[in-house]
């Protein structure tokens, strides 16, 4: 290493800030042997900022801990990034919400189902006082703006003449209120969670369309291409079975789902 000039001496004296936006983030996967299981945020099912207090977080960590699987849940801001790490970087695993993987993408994955939750279409009543209903046909919503997370599969909406507005999950409900989107598709519990946090005094204004939008499978997937992928998938399956047979799983489920 060569000696530095005066500017670097000055800069070293300036290095007193506690954190900056081009700085280290000391996470378990950085300096330990723990492998990453990537996920996006979908409260109350997955909340990377509050990992031990969300449905999948509690289930997954209970199993990881019990089975001594050296892995951590790592939150990413975009679903496309989860896919990239899983499929291109051969990450250990990922949680399933909104990954929309193709058959060929699933080829090297071991998918372990955990639960399934209901999804519905929601709109904001003050912006649509006459109501919205899709009645199983998306064409009935033609011309409207559908708000969803970046990376979601939106082809069928486009084909139905629906405009797409992509966004972070945290602001989808806000976009309904400020009339930037007309409707969203989310798990009922996720809508309830965000409305409770962001618009608690307006709960009655968020209306669920009567026909269900579908089911969202909640699963953990392990990557066969990761050196520990198959072994950890086997261990996880065993651990999840134990959690279910011991009644712990049902307790966690009850806490978040009902």
């Amino acid at each position, binding site marked *: 290493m060569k000696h530095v000039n005066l500017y670097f001496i000055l800069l070293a004296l300036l*290095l007193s800030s506690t954190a900056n936006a081009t700085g280290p983030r*000391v996470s378990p996967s950085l300096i330990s042997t723990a492998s990453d299981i990537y996920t996006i945020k979908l409260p109350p099912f997955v909340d990377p900022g509050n990992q031990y207090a969300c449905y999948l977080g509690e289930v997954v960590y209970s199993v990881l801990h019990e089975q001594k699987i050296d892995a951590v849940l790592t939150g990413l801001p975009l679903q496309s990034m989860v896919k990239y790490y899983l499929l291109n970087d051969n990450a250990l695993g990922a949680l399933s919400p909104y990954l929309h993987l193709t058959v060929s993408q699933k080829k090297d994955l071991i998918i372990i189902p955990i639960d399934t939750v209901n999804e519905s279409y929601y709109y904001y009543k003050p912006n649509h006082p006459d109501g919205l209903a899709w009645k199983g046909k998306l064409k009935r919503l033609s011309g409207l703006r559908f708000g969803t997370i970046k990376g979601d599969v939106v082809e069928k909406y486009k084909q139905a003449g629906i405009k797409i507005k992509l966004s972070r999950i945290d602001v989808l409900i806000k976009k309904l209120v400020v009339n930037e989107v007309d409707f969203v598709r989310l798990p009922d519990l996720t809508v309830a969670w965000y409305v409770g946090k962001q618009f608690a005094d307006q709960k009655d204004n968020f209306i669920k369309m009567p026909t269900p939008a579908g089911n969202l499978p909640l699963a953990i997937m392990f990557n066969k291409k990761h050196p520990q992928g198959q072994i950890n998938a086997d261990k996880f399956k065993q651990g999840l079975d134990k959690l279910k047979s011991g009644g712990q799983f049902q307790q966690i489920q009850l806490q978040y789902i009902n």
Partner: protein
Amino acid sequence: MSAHPIYKNGTLMLRLFYMLILLLPSFAVYAEEIILDANESPPFWSKDLPHQGLGGEIIQAISQQSGLKSRINFLPLKRLRDNSKNNDLGNPLFYMANQDFSAIIPIASYRVSFFYYQPNHTKTITLDLLQNLQKYNIGVLEGTLTKHSYFAEQDISFETSYSQTSLFKKLKHGRIDLVLAIDLVAINTINQLFPEQTEKFKQLKLPNSISPIAIMIAEEQSNAENIASQYRQGLKQIIANGQYLQILKKHYYSYIPKDWLSNLERFKQLYAFDSYE
């Protein structure tokens, strides 16, 4: 004296006028000053460094190449994070939880490494240390630790300091065994503090530590798509003509990581979400 043919031809004049009108929007893109917000993170971003640091110099070169007029505006981190309508510079993960961006253009990267002072250890430390970090007293900057509970469960303890200078002084005096720091920051701090002993400080590069430094274009930025495209093109050109490498050399000397450009390409793919809509 007869008039120049062009003045005789009203149609030609009209055509030229229309062409000028059509070209105006693209001129507007070039003329507009693009404000990019950063916080003090030397040697990557600093208003006190030549060219405003490594990142600043890359931004200048890209802008010059692409004909864009860019200005870096330095603000405290909290204000950057609270503002969800501005253009940002830095590691996208620090901002993406609070803001939607129209485009993210990785322009550089940084790596985090462990550093130790060899005379304080009888044996060479290798990356096997990750298996038993409990044995070591690790120094990190205050505020950089995430998931404290995981480290507590693993019985891994840290000593935090408010400055790199303090961390490396402690390392030299044996009060801590390892410092976890950004490679470029550490190299410069060691050079400044212990210029005669730089060879005695050893670096252990962490394989999963490479993070991007990017230009983040806000959704609210006018002409965002054109601007992003111009920045990307400018970056491509300065890499091709060698200017980019020259900038890196100024800061990394002969220590430019060999996989720098392949990592840049990887980050480009990782943040290529703007093509989804």
